[in-house]
Every structure is written in structure tokens, then in C-alpha cells.
């Protein structure tokens, strides 16, 4: 990592958090609806992992706004999607949980817990067959590691030695249920041990995440098969905006926030990358501005046309193709 990248990552983390608060505010105003899962507290993980995985395909779940933006999707287009506008990345049809941008190799938003994993395995298979040098990263929560799709994916990826990086964001909760109550242990990497090398990392430390994911990426790209990375993290908000977060004590939340990833990284910017206070402030201002612009853009964007309802059910009109 160099200073330029560190600054970019800081920018993305600050932007990400502001974006999420902006989304929350607009949910309260009624501009956004449905399920809105905020990534606040987990920015180091989303930003660090995506930046470490520069190229290659990314499959994630429904808590994917910051990942999408870190991958290069326009904050405007993401916010517009949350608003359900025609200018949204998915034309207003997908919403918060369904951000896709194949031109950026981002197949983000799956709202079926663990549903993206078999898809990521299949894509990794394709990359291996195509002798493509880039690998695939699948991102999922601790809750997903209890489902059949996860295990089938470990087994298949290991059998075919696929270039697939499994990244588990262990924030210890699936909605209101702690992972210790639905699995026999807290560390989900244990489940991957029979199949592939595993790494643990502090998910609140953007630099550490960046390093471990970079390392893992090199390993999968070298053709040695899949790798599993588990990052321990903590979400600050409820599961989604409509969840009151009443199942976690004030103490637990305080402990969480004491590890704040943005504060930590800011400190590194000062101490390690010798950024000035002014440089840092400029980044923060720029990030704030980007979110304001995104909200404005989303507000002013038009609704989809009524005809959009029937568009893109299929790619091709069936009558035209004959064998």
C-alpha cells in the first residue's frame, strides 16, 4: 500500500459511511423503502477487501453499497437505485439489495443468504476454463456459513482447485441471532479447514484486511485453489434500518465502536503516511460532497417509465430466434 492508495481507501471509507447515513436519512424521509442494510462499522472490510481485489469478479450479498462504490460504481447511480429511480444502476428495479455492474465485474446484490456462493463458484469455474488470470471473490456473512450452499461451495471449489476467495464478514450476528447460538464455535473459518487454507484478520483494520486479501488473492491467482479469509467485524446499526438492534447491550455496542475502523485508519494516515490535517480534511469534504451530490442526483432523477415493468423479463424476443 502506498500513500495514494491509503488516501483513496480513507476517502472510500468516509464516503461509504456518509453514504450509508445519507441513505438512512432518506429512508426516514420516505425516499427509500424496502430493506436497507447499512454497512456502518464494517467499512474497513468492504473497502480494504475490494481494493485488494482490484480485478476479478465480485459476488456479494445485500449489504453491498460500499463494496459497489469501492469497485467503481458511481455513488450517484447507487443512491438513485436506492431511490428506485430510472438512473439507478439497476434502473430502479433492484433497489438496495440488488446492485449489479457486469462492466465492473460486480454482481453484488443477492438477497438470498448464501445464494451468491454457488454463482461465485460457477464464475470461478468459468475463469479457470478460460485460463483467465483473475480470480473471483465471494463475500458473505457469518450467518451464511450455516447453509447448505456454503458447504457445497467449499467442497466444489476445493475439488476443482478453483481461483476463488471466500471472504466471511463475521459480525457475529445474523439479524438478531448470535453465531454462537447457531454454530458450535465462533470462528467460521474452522468449517473451511478441511478444504483450503484459511486466514483470520481484524476486519476493523483496513490495512490488515488489505494485506490479507492481497495475499489470498495472489494465492488463488497462482492456481493453488481456493482460500478462505475470515474477518471479524461489527455492524453499528440494526440488521436493517427497520431493526431496533435491541438484542445488543450498550456495553457490547461501546466495545464495538471503540474499534472504529475510520478512526483507526485516520490515525495511520497521520502516523504512517504522514498526511497533514488539511489533506485529511479535504478528503472528508470531498466525500461529504460526493454523497450530497448523489442524494441530489437521486432526488432529481426521473421515475422509471411505466413500460419498464415489462422490459428485461427476457433478453431476446422469442419469436425471432430459430435453431
Amino acid at each position, binding site marked *: 500500500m502506498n500513500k495514494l492508495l491509503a488516501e483513496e481507501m480513507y476517502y472510500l471509507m468516509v464516503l461509504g459511511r456518509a453514504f450509508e447515513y445519507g441513505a438512512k436519512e432518506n429512508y426516514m424521509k420516505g425516499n427509500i*423503502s*424496502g*430493506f436497507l442494510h447499512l454497512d456502518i462499522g464494517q467499512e474497513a472490510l468492504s473497502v480494504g477487501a475490494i481494493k485488494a481485489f482490484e480485478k476479478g469478479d465480485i459476488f456479494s450479498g445485500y449489504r453491498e453499497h460500499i463494496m459497489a462504490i469501492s469497485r467503481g460504481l458511481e455513488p450517484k447511480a447507487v443512491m438513485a437505485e436506492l431511490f*428506485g*429511480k430510472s438512473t439507478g444502476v*439497476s434502473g*430502479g*428495479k*433492484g*433497489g438496495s*439489495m*440488488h446492485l449489479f455492474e457486469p462492466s465492473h465485474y460486480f454482481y453484488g446484490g*443477492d*438477497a*438470498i*443468504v*448464501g*445464494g451468491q456462493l454457488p454463482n461465485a463458484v460457477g464464475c470461478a469455474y468459468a475463469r479457470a476454463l478460460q485460463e483467465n488470470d483473475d480470480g473471483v471473490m465471494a463475500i458473505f456473512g457469518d*450467518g*451464511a456459513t*450455516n*447453509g*447448505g450452499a456454503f458447504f457445497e461451495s467449499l467442497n466444489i471449489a476445493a475439488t476443482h482447485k478453483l481461483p476463488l476467495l471466500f471472504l466471511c464478514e463475521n459480525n457475529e450476528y*445474523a*439479524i*438478531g*441471532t448470535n453465531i454462537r*447460538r*447457531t*454454530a458450535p464455535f465462533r470462528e467460521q473459518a474452522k468449517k473451511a479447514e478441511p478444504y483450503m487454507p484459511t486466514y483470520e484478520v481484524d476486519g476493523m483494520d483496513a490495512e490488515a484486511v488489505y494485506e490479507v486479501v492481497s495475499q489470498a488473492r495472489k494465492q488463488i491467482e497462482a492456481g493453488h485453489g481456493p482460500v478462505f479469509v475470515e474477518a471479524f467485524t461489527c455492524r453499528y446499526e440494526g440488521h436493517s434500518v427497520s431493526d431496533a438492534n435491541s*438484542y445488543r447491550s450498550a456495553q457490547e455496542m461501546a466495545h464495538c465502536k471503540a474499534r472504529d475502523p475510520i478512526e483507526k485508519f485516520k490515525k495511520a494516515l497521520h502516523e504512517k503516511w504522514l498526511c497533514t490535517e488539511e489533506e485529511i480534511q479535504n478528503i472528508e469534504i470531498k466525500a461529504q460532497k460526493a454523497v450530497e451530490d448523489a442524494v441530489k442526483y437521486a432526488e432529481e432523477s426521473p*421515475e*422509471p417509465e*411505466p413500460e*419498464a*415493468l*415489462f422490459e428485461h*423479463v427476457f433478453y431476446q424476443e422469442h419469436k425471432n430466434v430459430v435453431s
Partner: protein
Amino acid sequence: MLYREALNRALDEVMSADDSVVTLGEDVGLYGGSFRVTEGLVEKYGEKRVIDTPIAELSIVGNAVGMAIGGLRPVAELMTGNFSLLAFDQIINHMAKLHYMSNGKIILPMVVRFPQGVSRQLAAQHSESYEQMLSAVPGLRVLSVNDVNYAYHALKYAILSDDPVVFIEHELLYNKKGEVDFAQKLDPFQARIAKEGSDITIVSYLKMVDDVMLAVPEIEEALGCSCEVIDLCSLNPIDYETLIESIQKTSRLVMVEEDHKTGGYGAQIISWAAEEMFYALDAPPLRLAGEDVPVPYNRSLELSSIPTPESIAQDIIAWGKNNEL
């Protein structure tokens, strides 16, 4: 009492009367249930009978089947209809068939419940309806009630019944208010006449019954006629007797459902009527249903993908006028 409170009450009563009743699902325990149907139960009956499961729908239903084999009466909750797809093997290949394949030796007193349907901008992976699939499976009873009183009685019946029951709810009904007559003896397989009338039989179920009821005054005014509204309550078996009686009286049939039209549940009702009630019908039947598109996130698109009180009124009025009603 709210609809979800009626369900809660039914569960609570049965759990208190019978130790073998357990409930399992994601967040049903400490969290109180994502739609609060199981609220307060874990405090009363403990974590062993109100079981927080991992996110593993195949196991939730598969474990419930095993629990029933082992002598319990499990009530499995799936968080949303779409996730039930992950459990279809256990629901269809196991829950529905073990009794028959064992020539009656295996008895499965169990319930699988879940909410489904278009709520508010939950997008395509959280908005679908699967009653058409599940009602077509021999060996399953499928209950899906609109009314608060029925919610209480039907769920209680489902848990007490020795047959496997799929109990389908709707996300937008949980906060519906109504009275419960606890002393009533209610046959959960009998359709409910939500409104009597003489000229058009409108058949519906689950949330759409409310939308139909909202549309009825406008329809009656515009067509100068009276509508009978039938809430099916049981999707399998179907209470054909009630339908026959109504159609014989009105000679006109409309089916309203929220699911996509092609292959939706209502096709069975209309197709039955065409076969069995052909000569009783004075006009072609009308089927109102959702569009054949995945449910979009945007609110206007979402609303235009399903029947609404406005579209129901408009479509029935146009049909009535076309058919000289």
C-alpha cells in the same frame, strides 16, 4: 387483536396445553420473530421449545419432519416465502409423501408457516407467492386465511391436526385488526363468505380479499349489481360446495389473486368452474392477477405489477359492462 397476535395466541395456547408442541425458525426465539408472531414464547417455554435455527431452510423443514417422526408437533417458521424454495425438497419429497409411502405408518403432525407476497418494495427475491406450487402437492393441506378470527382458529387447527399443513401468511396482514371468537367451532376448510351478494361471485384469498372488499362499493355502484365475496381460507382442499352455491346464485365468476397470472393458483378455480359449472355461467369468467414479471423494487412499478383496489374495480366494471351486467 392484531392478526399476528391471533397467531401468537394460537401458538401460545397450544404450547401451553401440550408439551410436545415446539416452534423453530430463524430469530423466532430471543429476537421475538421477524414479524413478532412468536413474541414472548421463548420466555414462557424456553429455548428448547422455541428454537432459534441457523439460516438453513432445508433443515428447518427437514428437522421438523424428523421431530414429528420423533413424537413432537413442530411448527416451523420460514422468514419469507421466497426462502421456502430452499426447503421444497423437504416439503414436497418428505413432508407431503412419507405418510403415503409408508402406507400410513408415519404420521406427521407438523406445520410449516411463512409470510409471502408483495409487501413494500422488497424486490423480486422477497415478494413472491408460492401457494400455486404448494397447493398442487398431494399430501399437504394448505391454509391461507385473510381474517383475524380465522387466523387464530386455523393455526390452532393446523397445529392440532395430525396431517402436515402449510400455513401461508401475508406480510401486509400482520397488523390487521379484528375480533376473535375464541369459543367458536370453526371448520378451517370451509370458505368464508366475506360479503353476501347476488350477481357476481368474486373469489379470492389472503390479502387480496381486503383489496376486493375495498373495490366492491365502486363496482356495485357502477354496475348496479351486488357482489358476493368468497374468501377461500383453505387452498387445498378447496371448498367447492360454497363456490357451487354462490355461482348457481350469481352465474358470474371473478377470481382475484396477487400472484403472477400465468399458472397462478386461480387457474385451478377457473378451470374447475369451466369444467363443472359451465352451464351455470352467464358470462366468461374473469381472472385478475399479477403481471408475468418478477416484482420490481420501484414503488409505482411494484404497484402496477399486482391488482390494487383501483385496478380491481376498474377491471371488473369493464368486464361487467362488456358482458351486459
